[in-house]
């Protein structure tokens, strides 16, 4: 578990958060610029000092302002990836990577040079100088450099924000491997919903220096009381488990978590039991009173209505549905809502037009 309480204010901005976060997996700090995400991360790293703060990462306390404890950043076993890779200009790639590794006591090393360079695909760049690298390469080296200190917590401050979408998609697979292959908890600051949906297990929604919500990503994205649900991009993330593969039609069958319902997705073959994350956008879900057998729509799930709110425009409403334990969102017109006479508890069918595979 991570316990993070921070209070800090300077002219025009105040940060006041009290977070309890899982001690493993990727936790996204998500919010608009100026919401306090980066300040939060800097306080956890000790690069900034919260006037009133308590930071506990698993069993280590890094700051407790009530007892005057403040561990300086260089004594905190963390890795930090900055938005710009910030490689040392006077050192080669190899020396940049070795900088933190050398300073990590041998007994604490769990990541070695070969593993880090392989994981981030940078083996061929070791003798180069940072000036002669592309933005994406620099950022991969920044990540490897942070990993080589064998951190007990990896802090990433919008590591993809300075990159164009091509470089971004070049790095995302490496971040996923990191998640899958190393057991290091990650705090990931981002304002990009697609990155968060793809990488995060847990999400903290920040706004004006306060945490509006903190919870598992599947549940939190489906909450109607948060601003996330109102936008055009609203949707849910589902971590399904592969139960079958239809080789003839090239369709995977995914079982939804905590539910008997399944979905079928066009995808390359995957072994039974493997996890696959998909995103279902609210605008791709339509509702009907009967199961429409005669339709090209592949995925029809029996659902019950849990609640409903107005969307960001008065023509639409957002409906939260329960698909046997898995929450879904549907963005439908107010007209259709009245036609169907929607009400909480009502059982109907959700037709899912598109399922995006995220990982």
């Amino acid at each position: 578990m991570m316990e993070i309480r921070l209070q800090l204010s300077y002219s025009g901005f105040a940060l006041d958060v009290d977070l309890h976060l899982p001690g493993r997996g990727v936790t996204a700090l998500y919010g608009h610029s100026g919401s306090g995400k980066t300040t939060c991360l800097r306080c956890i790293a000790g690069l900034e000092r919260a006037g009133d703060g308590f930071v506990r990462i698993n069993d280590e306390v890094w700051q407790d302002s009530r007892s005057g404890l403040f561990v300086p950043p260089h004594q905190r076993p963390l890795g930090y990836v900055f938005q710009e890779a910030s490689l040392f200009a006077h050192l080669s790639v190899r020396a940049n990577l070795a900088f933190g590794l050398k300073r990590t006591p041998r007994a604490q090393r769990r990541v070695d040079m070969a593993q880090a360079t392989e994981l981030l695909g940078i083996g061929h760049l070791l003798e180069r100088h940072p000036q002669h690298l592309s933005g994406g390469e620099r950022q991969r080296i920044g990540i490897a450099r942070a990993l080589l200190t064998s951190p007990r917590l990896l802090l990433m401050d919008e590591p993809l924000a300075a990159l164009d979408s091509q470089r971004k998609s070049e790095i995302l697979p490496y971040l996923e491997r990191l998640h899958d292959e190393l057991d290091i908890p990650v705090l990931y600051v981002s304002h990009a919903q697609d990155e968060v949906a793809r990488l995060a297990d847990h999400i903290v929604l920040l706004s004006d220096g306060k945490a509006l919500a903190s919870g598992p990503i599947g549940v939190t994205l489906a909450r109607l009381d948060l601003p996330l649900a109102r936008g055009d991009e609203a949707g849910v993330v589902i971590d399904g488990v592969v139960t079958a593969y239809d080789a003839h039609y090239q369709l995977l069958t995914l079982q939804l978590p905590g539910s008997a319902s399944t979905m079928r997705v066009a995808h390359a073959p995957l072994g039974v039991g493997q996890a696959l994350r998909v995103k279902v956008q609210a605008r791709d879900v339509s509702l009907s009173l009967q199961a429409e057998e005669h339709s090209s729509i592949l995925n029809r799930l029996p659902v019950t209505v849990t609640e409903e709110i107005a969307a960001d425009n008065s023509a639409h409403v957002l409906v939260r549905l329960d698909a046997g334990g898995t929450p879904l969102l549907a963005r439908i017109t107010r007209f259709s809502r009245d036609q169907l006479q929607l009400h909480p508890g009502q059982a109907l069918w959700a037709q899912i037009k598109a399922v995006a595979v995220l990982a």
Partner: protein
Amino acid sequence: MPLSSADFSAIWLTIKLASLTTVILLVIGTPIALWLSRTRSWWRGPVGAIVALPLVLPPTVIGFYLLLSMGPNGYFGQFTQWLGLGTLTFSFAGLVIGSVIYSLPFVVQPLQNAFSAIGTRPLEVAATLRAGPWDTFFSVILPLARPGFVTASILGFAHTVGEFGVVLMIGGNIPDKTRVVSVQIYDHVEAMEYAQAHWLAGAMVVFAFFVLLALYSSRKTNMGWN
């Protein structure tokens, strides 16, 4: 032989004074420059102004006050007498102190610019990579500020070599102790030994030219750092 043994002795003394002054200035100028480039304290303005004073004051003004404070009745003079060192006026040690003050801005300002140009990010990166403050200074700040140190050393050395007013005020004109090249030239001129003054003065012009040439070409090649 165009240069007399007195000339050589003045040259040697000048080199000794300028080298020692440069070393001392790098040691005390680095923390001052580091502080000036990082602090947000109210004292930044006043301290910066004091460091820059020798740029605008006539050397005789600096020399005059140094003479007073280092003399037998000055605070510093009484302190050195209490230590059993006597007074430092008209001594090589006094010249070193005067030169350090006189050349301070020529060392602090290039260093301060170099440190400011580095910014705080590399220091934060170093901290997150387990480097403590001293480690960061030697493994990150020093190499990144290398062009600044080169400039500061060259300017500190050359400016001390060019010193005249302060030397005359506090050091006088004692062979082997305080008679540096600039004073020796003055002596030659006073004694109407123009030929000898020419040799020394010409040597100074050549020296200054090559120092500045080294400075400007090193700046050019050092641009590659950033």
